[in-house]
C-alpha cells in the first residue's frame, strides 16, 4: 500500500469544512436540540424550561394513542412495502417485455413519482369523498364504506393513497435491475427451462435481490416518514387515532398541541426504532443476499 501524504496538516480540514458545516447545522444541531427538548419540560414559548429526566418518555408510554400510532405505523409500512413492491415488480417485468413504445410506458409509469405526497393526498381525498368520490361509491356499494368511523375502511383509504405514488419508485428500480441482468444468463436459462414463471422465480428474482433489499428499506422509510403529507390531507389520523403514523403524532403533539417535550421524546423513540429496524435488516437479511 502506498500512502498519500498531504504536505499541510490543515488543508484537508479546509476541504471538509463546507460539508461538515452543513452536517453540523442541519443534522447534529437539530439532533442535539431534540435531545434537549425530550429531557426538559417547557411551555410553548420555551419558558419555564426545567430538566425533566424521563418524564416525557413516561408520558408517551402511558398514552394509549402512542401505541395505536406504533401499531398503525408497523402495519402501514408492512402493507405499503408489500403492495408497492409486488405491483412495482409486476409492472416492471411486463414493461421489460414490451417491444414497441417502451419509453412511453416507462414515462407514464414513472410520472406519479414526481408528485408531492400532499398533492397525492388531495387527489385521494377527491376519490374518497363521500359526495363525489368514485372509489367511495364503489366500496360503498360493495360493503357500505365509511372511513369516518370504520378503522378498516380508513386503512384502505390511506393505504391506497400511500401506495399509488410509491409504486412508481419501485417500478423504476426493478426495471433498472431487470435491465442490468446479463442477456446471456437469461438465454442460458431459456435453454434449460421452458416455464416462464419458474425461470422468473429461480433465475431473475434471485438476481434482483439486491434491488429488492434496497427497495424494502426505501419503502419502509417512505411509509415511516414521507407519508406525513398524505395522512395530513386525507384522514388526519381519524377515526380515533387509528391512522396516525408516529411522525404524524409527533407533529400533532409538537406543532398543533405545542408540547415540544413530548414531541422530542417521540422523535428519539422513532430514531431508536429506525435504528433497530436497519440493524436487523443489515444483520439478518443482507447476509442472505448475493451481490454480483
Amino acid at each position, binding site marked *: 500500500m502506498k500512502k498519500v501524504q498531504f504536505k499541510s496538516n490543515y488543508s484537508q480540514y479546509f476541504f471538509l469544512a463546507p460539508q461538515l458545516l452543513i452536517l453540523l447545522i442541519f443534522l447534529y444541531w437539530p439532533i442535539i436540540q431534540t435531545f434537549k427538548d425530550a429531557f426538559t*419540560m*417547557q*411551555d*410553548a*414559548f*420555551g*419558558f*419555564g424550561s*426545567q430538566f*425533566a429526566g424521563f*418524564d416525557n418518555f413516561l*408520558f408517551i408510554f*402511558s*398514552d*394509549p*394513542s402512542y401505541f395505536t400510532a406504533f401499531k398503525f405505523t408497523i402495519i402501514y409500512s408492512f402493507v405499503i412495502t408489500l403492495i408497492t413492491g409486488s405491483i412495482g415488480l409486476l409492472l416492471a417485468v411486463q414493461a421489460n417485455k414490451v417491444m414497441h413504445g417502451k419509453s412511453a410506458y416507462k414515462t407514464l409509469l414513472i410520472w406519479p413519482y414526481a408528485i408531492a405526497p400532499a398533492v397525492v393526498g388531495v387527489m385521494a381525498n377527491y376519490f374518497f369523498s*363521500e*359526495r363525489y368520490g368514485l372509489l367511495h361509491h364503489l366500496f360503498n356499494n360493495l360493503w357500505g364504506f365509511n*372511513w*369516518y*368511523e*370504520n378503522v378498516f375502511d380508513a386503512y384502505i383509504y390511506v393505504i391506497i393513497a400511500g401506495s399509488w405514488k410509491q409504486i412508481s419508485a419501485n417500478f423504476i428500480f426493478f426495471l433498472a435491475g431487470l435491465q442490468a441482468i446479463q442477456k446471456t444468463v437469461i438465454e442460458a436459462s431459456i435453454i434449460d427451462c421452458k416455464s416462464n414463471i419458474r425461470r422468473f422465480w429461480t433465475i431473475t428474482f434471485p438476481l434482483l435481490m439486491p434491488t429488492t433489499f434496497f427497495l424494502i428499506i426505501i419503502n419502509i422509510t417512505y411509509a415511516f416518514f414521507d407519508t406525513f403529507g398524505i395522512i395530513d390531507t386525507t384522514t*388526519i389520523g*381519524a*377515526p*380515533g*387515532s387509528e391512522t396516525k403514523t408516529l411522525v404524524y403524532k409527533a407533529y*400533532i*403533539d409538537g*406543532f*398543533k*398541541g*405545542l*408540547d415540544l*417535550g*413530548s414531541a422530542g421524546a417521540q422523535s428519539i423513540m422513532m430514531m431508536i426504532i429506525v435504528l433497530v429496524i436497519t440493524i436487523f435488516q443489515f444483520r439478518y437479511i443482507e447476509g442472505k443476499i448475493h451481490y454480483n
Partner: protein
Amino acid sequence: MKKLISIFILLVSFAFTSNSYSKTEIHWWYGNSGFLGDVIIEIANRFNESQDEYMVIPTGKGSYEDNMAATIAAFRAGDQPHYSQVYDAGAAIMVAQVKNGVVIGFEEMAEKYGIDVDADNYIPGIKNFYADGDGKMIGVPFNSSTCLMYANMDILNEVGIEEVPKTYEEFEGMAQKILDAGYIPLLQSHSPWIWTENFFSRHNLLMTDGNNGYDAVPTKTLFAETEAFVYHWTKVKEWYEKGYYGYKGRAWGDNQAPFTNGEAAFWFGSAASFGGMKGVLPNFTTNPIPYWDSVTGGKEYPTFIGGAANWILNGHTEEEYKGLAKFIEFMGSPEMDLYYHNMTGYAAVTKGGIELAETINFYRASPYHKAVGDQLGLEGSTIPGGYRAGNWPQIREVIYENVEPMLNGDITVEKALSNMDKGAAKLLKQFAKTL
C-alpha cells in the same frame, strides 16, 4: 465603466424611491382563510388608506393552529409579528405568557401608547374571556363567535314543522319526521367545541375543577362525573344509530356541506358560517343552540365566546407600537366593528358597535346577525364565561379520538368519557409543570 455608472445610478434611485415611501410597518398575522381572510385584508387596507404614517401588513398563516405555531416559532427565532390572531383554545397559553414578556396586555398597551378605546368599551363576556385572573384584559377581542343552530326552513316547511326546536327534547320529537322525508335531521361541525365545551356553558355546568381554571390551575375535566354530559352523549349515540344525527368526520366543511346542499334540516356551526351560506341556501335561519330542558329546568344559559382575539407581541420599537395603538383604535371604532359584524357574522364586540347597530335598525334588515348576540348576551350563569385550561388544543384532539370509537360502538359512552378525562388530566398535569 459606463455600464457600472448606470447600474450605480439605478441602485441609488431605487434606494431613494423606497426610502421616500417608507412607512412604519406593522405586521399582523392571522389564521383565517377564504372569505374571512379577505375581510381581514380589507380591514388592513382601509386602515392603510385612512392615514399615511403606518402600514399594516396582514399575513395569513393558514388555520388557527398553524398561525399559533408560526407565531411561537417566530418568537423563538426573534422574528415575531406585532399583532397575531390566536384562537380560544390558545387563550390560556397566551395569557400565561404576559409574565414572560412575550405578550403585552391590552390595558398596559392602552396606558402606554394612549389607545382611545377603553377595555370597558368591549362587551363584558368577551372582555372576560381574554382577561387574566385579575380581570385585566390581555387579548384584544376580534372575531368573536359562538356556536349556533342553522335551520333549513324549506325542509321544515315540507315536513310540516312550524317552530324551530328550542330544546333537544323538541328536536328528538321531530327527527323521525325529517328522516322519513329523506333528509338528515342533524349535523354539527365540531364535537369538542360545540358538544363539549359549549355543552357545559349552555347548561351552566363546570367543565374542569378550579372553577374552570379561573380560581386554580385545573387538574381534571369533569366529563364522566357530570351526569347531564353522560346523558347527552348517550342520546347522541342513540341518534347516530337511528340516523337522526350524521357524523361526517372531523373536517368542518364535510359536515357543513350536506346542509349547504339542502340535504340536512339542522346544522350546528359557527356564527361566522352564514357568510358562505347566504346566497347558496335559499331559505335558512340562525337560531340559538338547543339545550336539554330536563337538565336546566327550562332555563337558558349563554355559551362561551368562540373564535379568536388579537394579541400584542413584545420586542418591537416604540414607533411601531404607536402605530399598532392607532390600528387597535381604528378596529375598535363602532363603524369598523359593525362592518366586521355585518360582513362575517361574528359578534359585534364593542358597546359602540352594538349601539350603532341599534340606531340604524341593523337587525331588522339582517335578522341572521341577531342570534349570536342574543345567545352570548343571556344572563344568569353562575360559572365563569370561559375556561383557563392549558394544552387545550391537545385535549380537543383527545375528545375527537374518543368520540369516533364511541359512535362506532367500539367503546361505551361511559368508557369514552372516562378516557377523555384521563387523557385530559395527563395533559393538564403536563401543562401545570411548565407554569
